[in-house]
């Protein structure tokens, strides 16, 4: 087992700074909303005194202040949501003088209070979700939502259609769901999931054979280095999919992961190769070879692999090494889109709450 390193003092102050920044933004937002309210009142007063141009100017000030105020008050939020919020504010406040602002304020202020409120974290009562990819395979981390197309409450025909849709989906998303469908009470669903998984395995193995042949013929090709790099990347990817897909188990899984890591490291020796490093890190994490994972992660950072791609891997490594205070910081580098995914959002929220409590 890897030794646990104590949290550093620098890390704690970084966290405090970002929390302060968030509070300051929310305070500014509230101030802007108050200013917007005043501007709208003055606009109404100007209109009462027939000063139309002044009224229009003050009304526009209100619209702008409301829009920025709401955005700051509810920060942080994903870019897509921010755009939607801005358009809604402009439309409502701009087109409905007086009542538009009141409506927006009535919605925004409770959200402002809710966001600012610190929720005490009861670690004993709240289970800690695992955020490794293995957790997805069990499917139980989040429970089954009413919108879950594989929920047993959904009609069998619809569950069959949902499983069919997984046929063309990317492996990392499709395979955990297909594995879950193997335990469906309806035989039609189970058999279809089994057939899809079987076909996927067959395809991966066929591609493996091709990639092995490609590597074997690399030296004879006009550009051997390019061919070898491509072959290593493919082999790493296919071995990883075999392991991730659960198509191998026990010692075989271990062997396949080691092969995935070996080929990934071989591919990464070629300049500019970054994708393979991600596979290497994943494989080392699964093998619990944390020192190797850390080394690969460091190389990935040096190779300018985007922080958002490394974020979950950094977080998992920190967790496995017992550096729990670094997990939230690692997850904060996730892209907004990734952090909003149901499973990931749950994990991110847990660690953010833990960090702020």
């Amino acid at each position: 087992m890897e030794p646990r390193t104590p949290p550093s003092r620098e890390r704690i102050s970084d966290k405090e700074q970002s929390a302060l920044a968030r509070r300051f933004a929310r305070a500014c937002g509230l101030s802007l909303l108050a200013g917007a309210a005043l501007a709208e009142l003055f606009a109404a007063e100007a209109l009462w005194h027939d000063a139309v141009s002044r009224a229009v100017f003050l009304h526009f000030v209100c619209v702008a202040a409301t829009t920025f105020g709401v955005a700051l008050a509810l920060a942080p939020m994903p870019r897509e949501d921010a755009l939607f919020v801005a358009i809604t504010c402009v439309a409502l406040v701009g087109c409905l003088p007086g009542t538009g602002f009141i409506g927006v304020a009535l919605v925004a202020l409770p959200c402002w209070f809710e966001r600012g409120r610190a929720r005490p974290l009861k670690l004993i009562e709240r289970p800690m979700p695992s955020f490794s990819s293995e957790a997805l395979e069990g499917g139980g981390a989040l429970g089954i939502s009413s919108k879950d197309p594989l929920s047993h409450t959904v009609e069998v025909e619809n569950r069959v259609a949902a499983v069919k849709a997984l046929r063309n989906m990317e492996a990392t998303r499709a395979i955990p769901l297909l594995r879950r469908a193997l335990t469906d009470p309806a035989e039609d669903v189970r058999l279809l999931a089994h057939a899809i998984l079987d076909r996927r395995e067959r395809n991966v193995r066929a591609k493996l054979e091709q990639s092995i042949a490609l590597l074997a013929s690399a030296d004879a090709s006009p550009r051997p280095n390019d061919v070898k790099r491509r072959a290593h990347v493919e082999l790493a990817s296919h071995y990883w999919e075999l392991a991730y897909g659960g198509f191998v188990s026990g010692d075989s899984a271990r062997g396949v992961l080691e092969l995935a890591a070996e080929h990934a490291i071989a591919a990464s020796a070629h300049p500019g190769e970054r994708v393979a490093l991600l596979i290497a890190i994943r494989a080392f994490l699964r093998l619990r070879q944390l020192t190797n994972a850390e080394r690969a992660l460091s190389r990935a950072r040096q190779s300018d692999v985007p922080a958002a791609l490394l974020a979950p891997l950094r977080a998992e490594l920190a967790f496995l090494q017992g550096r729990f205070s670094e997990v939230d910081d690692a997850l904060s580098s996730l892209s907004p889109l990734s952090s909003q995914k149901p499973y990931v959002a749950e994990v991110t929220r847990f660690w953010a709450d833990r960090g702020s409590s």
Partner: protein
Amino acid sequence: MPADICLLLEGTYPYVRGGVSSWVHQIIRGLPELTFALVFIGGSRKDYGELKYELAPNVVHLETHYLEDSLRDTKPHPVQFEGKRLEEVRAFHRALADYQGAVSKPELDTQLDTLLRTVEQPDGVNREHFLFGSGSWDFFREVYTRSHAPAPFLDFFWTLRLMHGPIFQLAKIAAQAPEAGAYHTISTGYAGLLGAFLERRRGRKLILSEHGIYTKERKIDLNQADWIDALRPRRSLDLEDQGSSTRRLWIRYFEGLGKLTYRSADPIIALYAGNRARQLQDGADPARTRVVVNGVDVKQFEPALRARPSEVPLTIGLVGRVVPIKDVKTFIRAMHFVIGVIPSCEGLIIGGADEDPSYAEECTALVRSLGLEESVRFLGHQKVIDMFPKLGLLMLSSISEAQPLAVLEAFASGVPCVVTDVGACREQIEGLTDDDRALGLAGRVVPFADPEALGRAAVELLEDPQRWRDCQAAGLSRVRSFYTQESMIDAYRDIYRKARPT
């Protein structure tokens, strides 16, 4: 002289080895006082070779038909043919599409009678009329416009032709089929449709015995079929699966055939309660359904029981064809687990590998990739009586089963079983009624597609001789008490007696 019973066999006995074929063979041999005529229906000639069973002396007739012939020798040429002549076909369509049971039995009988009087008759509608007639083209357009637009017309056109070809062919077969005291079909589908035609044409009872549920199996095949998805963009994640009206068309077609058979047959027999429930769900009349379990000739397996060694052999066998439904790959992976714990253990795959050569090749490659060439062997088809004394366990890794005869034969030979939780396997291992359950566990039941669970269960039994013997004893008692061939044959003797005219 008419045979007593005419068996309608689709894709099974006597050209295919397997559980259903063995069952048919048992029935024929178990009732030597009755004569049997066999009508075999296959898809394509190239899929079936010579006879796989030696026919008993009481088989007095065998005829073979292939559905590929329904669209053979049909050089397109113009045929003048009025669409209104297809009214009988339209009526039949309505009967086939009758999902709510709104069409009463007498109405259905009338439509079938009309169809049979017309189809393939000298002055009626024949296959060429349907395939090439100008009125037929109008019929296609009418049906397409009414219910299938905007799906591709070309797919619809060829699908409808493929569907109707066999209907005309079976109507013709029904006109020429042997006379018999009663007709007994072993599935719905095309054999069931032929049975429905014969029930009307000959005025004889139709008996239906379902092992697997044909309609369910076709739905599964169609849901898995790649060629249907080639008809729409591959990247679509549309849950509505709009591109596959073809799939729905075929599913409804087989559902229609199933319902038609259920409404024509009496009795409708299932092997176990789970399948009976599925029959009821698919439209069978509860009053006509019953369960008759499989049975084995326990005396026949006594030599195998006596030949058992005193020690438990560290050999695990899978008795079954090397086909995807038997999930042989999971068996191989399970063996990998077992051999990791018990290195001297070996696995034997006892069954033909010629039905699905590509799958068999994948299994062989898997054995190689796991380094199990010395420990896991493919033996091909063998006499199970000779193999059971060598086995410590029978392992069934199937992803779908009805009531496997291999398990009952293993019990009779003193071999406990580790099975997947499909079909009637759980009740075979654990028992069904209170008396049956009191006999104890005859092995272990695990979830399907879980090689580790299979392997662990096998290791548990092989490493604990006392537990193994308890399972052996339970299996022997169970098969002798509840799954004897005598009781199954007696049940069918009675069914045939009631079905045949006095």
